[in-house]
């Protein structure tokens, strides 16, 4: 199992978040999620400026095998989408924490990092899944 990037936050739904310097948050799915889904063949992205609520549907990732919803880990406004995924959805398999990012959000005012998982906490969750 690859080591988790230490500068990210995680969710129990196997998403990651990175706080950017400008206050926005970049979001993707973890290596564990991408591996479980298998080769990705299509990503349905939200619209820019779309407002999403925490827990609401934000994107759909489809692998050769099945379609999976990606839920918004936080509330906020979509400010960027990774349009490269339209032509190359497998970027998520290859570089889930880099070029495989999915959206960037402007978080709502009540954004609370403490509800997200630290790398250690997420690693623990993965270890429990392995058992």
């Amino acid at each position, binding site marked *: 199992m690859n080591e988790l990037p230490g500068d990210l936050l995680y969710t129990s739904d196997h998403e990651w978040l990175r706080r950017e310097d400008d206050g926005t948050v970049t979001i993707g799915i973890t290596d564990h999620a991408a591996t479980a889904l*298998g*080769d990705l*063949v*299509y990503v349905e992205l939200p619209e820019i400026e779309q407002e999403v609520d925490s827990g609401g549907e934000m994107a759909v990732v*489809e692998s*050769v*095998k*099945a379609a999976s919803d990606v839920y918004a880990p936080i509330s906020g406004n979509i400010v960027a989408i990774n349009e490269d995924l339209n032509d190359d959805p497998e970027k998520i398999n290859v570089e889930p924490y880099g070029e495989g990012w999915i959206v960037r959000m402007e978080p709502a005012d009540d954004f609370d990092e403490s509800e997200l998982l630290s790398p250690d906490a997420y690693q623990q969750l993965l270890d429990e899944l392995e058992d």
Partner: protein
Amino acid sequence: MGLRTPLHEQHVDADARIVDFGGWDMPLHYGSQKEEHLAVRQNAGAFDVSHMTIVDLSGARVREFLQYLVANDVARLKKYGKALYTCMLNPAGGVIDDLIIYFVADTEYRLVVNAATREKDLAWITEQAAPFAVDVRERAELAMIAVQGPNARDMAAPCIDAKWRDAALALKPFNGLQAGELFVARTGYTGEDGWEIVLPAAAAPAIWNSLLAAGVVPCGLGARDTLRLEAAMNLYGSDMDESISPLEAGLGWTVAWEPAERNFIGRPQLEMLRQSPDRRRFVGLLLEDRGVLRNHQKVIVDGIGEGEITSGGFSPTIGRSIALARVPAGNYDRAQVEVRGKLLNVRIVKTPFVRNGKIRIDV
């Protein structure tokens, strides 16, 4: 824990992702389903299909029995080793299972039926066989390896004893032969050339290992499904079941109407459906918009009616989504599919989508 094939250890050692399939622990993929798929289209792949059920039938009246049991006619099998694809129907004309029948000897035939339908198939065959005094013998001790792809036969040939190797390589499509303890047939479920090899369980690991050592790529059920979809080969339980006749599942070509006096199970119902103007079409779909077609999505034909996708997915060879669908009768070549509340455009295309490494539809 499910049932395990004689190659289970090989799959685990190769880090396969194991899933339940009809009660069996089977490999879904060994890393990348897409790479496995393309290996079969371009080179050679090996599939463990030991979960499939092999049934040997024997008896003086076995041919007469099979002419009654299945919709295709085993009288078409003139030479030993020849194979026949057919459906086994219920009295309503619905498909109990699809299967391959090999002509072994005048009083002996071999059936390969689906794993997920094993119990009901055996019960049905045994019940129907009784009046014909045909012996029904399941061969659970046999394993089965499919080796498929343009280079599959050449790469697998060294696995066959030199005494039979040339004869095996000379087999024509849909023919098989017994080569020592291996039964080798030029059949498959991928749309590529290749062999399906039935062999004793104890011999399976060594053959599997030598195929892989020769460069044949191990492939899981995931690639098996996308390959057969591209080849427009039906999957039992998805494309047809006991409520669907072969005539509405694109399998009319497997029904032998002649001789007219041959009375196979389900024939009267099929004859009626054959005359019906409302008989549904079974078609191939190519998605023209972005997205992925999936099983059970609704197909909408403007002004005519609705149908359903029976097998949908992404075609690694074409790079687009394709599907098989059952749709209303009528003359049209476009439709829409409802995907998560949106209507996407599809074109009806002549199948197969892909065969022998080549895309066969206009994209």
